[in-house]
């Protein structure tokens, strides 16, 4: 089940009403767990065993790790947990990729190997709940948290439906303390929950889906048929689309959790205001980047073993980060590209930091604007990598982004009406402006403009109601899943 589906709009009020009508902790959590498993099993139902099995393994592993004083045994159970989670993740997500590459390699060597005629459907949210399971057992192993005694409580932590499909990746230390007694919903949480849910829906259905349908999809599908101006617009529109799609989902997840009284961690901090690539990764998909930092980068040594090892660690982390998103070469390239940028930025930062004139220059507004432009350019190139349908098409769009002109091939009609000299349907700049409006507000706050953080509830709810109406009217009506659910 996904948030923007009809089934969900029956499911959510039903579960919400049941949850708040029940008075005691036990039935409340049992209902929530049953609802979460129903949410998971909606499509396809035969994968329910995946989450049940991993939940059982991690639950037992957590208890065994805590109860044992023998380090060998503790490490063994930790290995069981990590291998189970990663094993199933790799099996479902990367089998096809490995097989396809084996076929290509075999064909290259002249060995006949049949191309696959099968397709693996990913279980819902497997990339997210496996990471939650690993973080739990690792935290128990490290002694950061106590193992959960109740299977139901642990299962609810793993499969709590608002964050099940596409995160945020919640840590046990963030979620379990909230479960000790059922959280009481405050008026502020209700208000925040409704606004986050409705505006998240608006971001997804009105901004992201319309951008994709109107412009981004056609241009990325066949870039050769469009000129360089269209390429540049399409890359910017794609950046806004992926942000609105994913942050829209996150807003809806956080909003839904709030109306049950739970708080989920934020996933975004105005990422497109970043002034360096390192800054960008501190603002984009926070729950994943901090997970990779705490459970991969730091255990590998982080930056404690000299520059060369640090760059190596960064490359490994980002290549795996790329592959986590998708089993494809372009995702691997995306990871390597970001790893290289992070390493270069780190090297540059090491050299320049502490030099008085350089520090003074970097503190100026002009430098910040320049740094912002440079950073935007870097992540836009990265975004081409993950949307391109062919390497040739990606190169063409990257050249356009670099200012190299391109004249469309043949008589191909763009498939949409462009407006004036913009070379883009007029709705596109409008949707981009809507999508980035939150960033503009954030920027205004950063420069000291007194923009209120919170409108009075009546105004807020009126705005949410208008947004709900706009969602009804202006959503394209073509069911498109959330991008990050596919990861």
């Amino acid at each position: 089940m996904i948030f923007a589906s009809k089934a969900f709009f029956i499911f959510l009020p039903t579960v919400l009403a049941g949850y708040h009508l029940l008075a005691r902790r036990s039935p409340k959590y049992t209902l929530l767990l049953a609802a979460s498993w129903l949410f998971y099993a909606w499509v396809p139902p035969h994968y329910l065993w995946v989450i049940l099995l991993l939940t059982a393994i991690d639950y037992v592993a957590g208890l065994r790790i805590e109860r044992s004083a023998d380090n060998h045994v503790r490490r063994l159970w930790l290995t069981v947990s990590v291998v189970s989670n990663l094993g199933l993740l790799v099996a479902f997500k990367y089998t096809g990729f490995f097989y396809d590459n084996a076929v290509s390699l075999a064909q290259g060597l002249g060995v006949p190997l049949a191309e696959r005629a099968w397709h693996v459907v990913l279980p819902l949210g497997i990339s997210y709940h496996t990471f939650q399971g690993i973080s739990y057992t690792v935290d128990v192993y490290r002694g950061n948290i106590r193992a959960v005694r109740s299977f139901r409580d642990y299962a609810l932590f793993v499969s709590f439906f608002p964050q099940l499909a596409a995160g945020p990746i919640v840590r046990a230390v963030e979620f379990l303390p909230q479960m000790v007694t059922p959280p009481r919903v405050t008026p502020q949480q209700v208000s925040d929950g409704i606004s986050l849910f409705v505006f998240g829906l608006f971001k997804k259905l009105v901004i992201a889906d319309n951008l994709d349908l109107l412009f981004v999809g056609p241009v990325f599908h066949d870039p050769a048929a469009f000129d360089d101006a269209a390429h540049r617009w399409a890359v910017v529109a794609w950046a806004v689309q992926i942000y609105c799609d994913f942050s829209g989902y996150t807003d809806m997840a956080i909003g839904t959790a709030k109306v049950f009284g739970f708080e989920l961690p934020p996933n975004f901090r105005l990422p497109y205001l970043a002034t360096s690539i390192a800054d960008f990764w501190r603002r984009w998909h926070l729950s994943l980047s901090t997970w990779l930092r705490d459970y991969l980068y730091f255990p590998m040594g982080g930056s404690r073993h000299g520059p060369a090892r640090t760059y190596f660690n960064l490359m490994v982390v980002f290549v795996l980060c790329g592959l986590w998103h998708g089993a494809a070469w372009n995702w691997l390239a995306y990871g390597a590209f970001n790893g290289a940028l992070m390493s270069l930025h780190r090297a540059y930062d090491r050299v320049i930091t502490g030099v008085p004139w350089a520090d003074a220059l970097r503190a100026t507004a002009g430098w910040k604007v320049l740094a912002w432009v440079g950073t935007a350019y870097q992540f836009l190139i990265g975004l081409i990598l993950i949307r391109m349908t062919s390497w040739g098409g990606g190169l063409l769009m990257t050249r356009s982004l670099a200012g190299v002109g391109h004249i469309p091939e043949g008589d191909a009609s763009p498939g949409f009406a462009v407006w004036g000299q913009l070379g883009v349907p007029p709705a596109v700049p409008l949707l981009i402006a809507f999508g980035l409006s939150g960033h503009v507000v954030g920027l205004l706050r950063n420069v000291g403009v007194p923009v209120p953080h919170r409108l009075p509830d009546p105004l807020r709810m009126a705005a949410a109601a208008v947004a709900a109406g706009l969602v009804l009217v202006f959503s394209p009506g073509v069911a498109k899943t959330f991008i990050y659910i596919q990861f």
Partner: protein
Amino acid sequence: MFGRPRSRSPTRPAMTATATPEPPPRGRLRPAAWFLAALVLVDCGVVLCRDTWERHSPDDYAEKLAGCRSRPHDFVLAGGSPVAEGLDPDVVAGVRWRGGELSDGYAIGLSGATTTETYYAVVHGCPVPPRLLVYGITASDLNDARQEPHGPYSLMTIADWVEWVRTKPESAEWVTRHFVQGRLAKCWAAFRYRHGIRMWAAETADRWLPGCCPEAAKEAGELLRYSETLRAGHGYAPAEGFVTGNYDEAKATERKLPPFGFLDKYRTGSHLKYLHKLADWAAAAGTDLVLLDMPVTADLEAKFPAAVAEYERRLAEFKAGRKVTVLCATRGAVGLGDRDFADLIHLNGGGARKLSAWLRDRLAETDRRRGEGDRP
């Protein structure tokens, strides 16, 4: 154990925040109440302008029903899309019937309608029964593999739903689902009129900034014209694509036509019950019922020979059993060729004129024969 009051869990201290007194329920629900109130206000605003939205995206079933109900008519032409595109009441008007002239007619041809929808359209569209009811029937009207959700949505009342469930229990779940969905959709005006609002927005934006959304503005313009024709005319409002379409040319240029699935999995029996109900209604109302077997292309007949044979058998049984007049508008009789069709089943503008004129002549002849004591 984790979560119990005496738990040793280190997470226990984090519960201090939840130990605060529970806020009063009214306070907790206030934002939700504000939100609901705002939704209702937005919806009221939408309802206030409903005529604008309806004009920009007319519900043709509802508009034709309202048009037909607006005043009594001498005759009514009913049926599915072949009637909507192929019979012009203005051409038929003027024919003499049972000693009087049929001067005012209305075409309640509903796209996608089966015999069941036609029955409900006639029953609700004619509070004052007409003197003559012509039902332009085709094989697809009787195909039980087809259900038209527009019927439960726009034509049916609760009593009709109950009647359907009793008459056609095999589709009780389907009709209930669509009937309830239709009723719920009508409760939320923003949802009901969403397409009309979108068309209005496109048209308004294009008026202010010409060329900004030409495709949507063109669609909005076409829908506005369609709506005006529906409201002002006699129900005959063929789509421009059908009026100018030419099946002969389409075949010659090998232009790909949309697939025709209305005769797939052909079976009869369920919709046929409503043909009998229509005959019963006409008999009770004192209305003459004439069935017009609508012309279709030779290609359609060749493509679905079993369905056509089944349909003709059912029609013959009905004619014999109910003693109803059936006019067979074969292509040869009317003088129609592929050039008079827009696609496999719909007539174009020229074909519609020919068929309407043929119907007028045949009605006059039928009336004359009846006067002479003969039945065709």
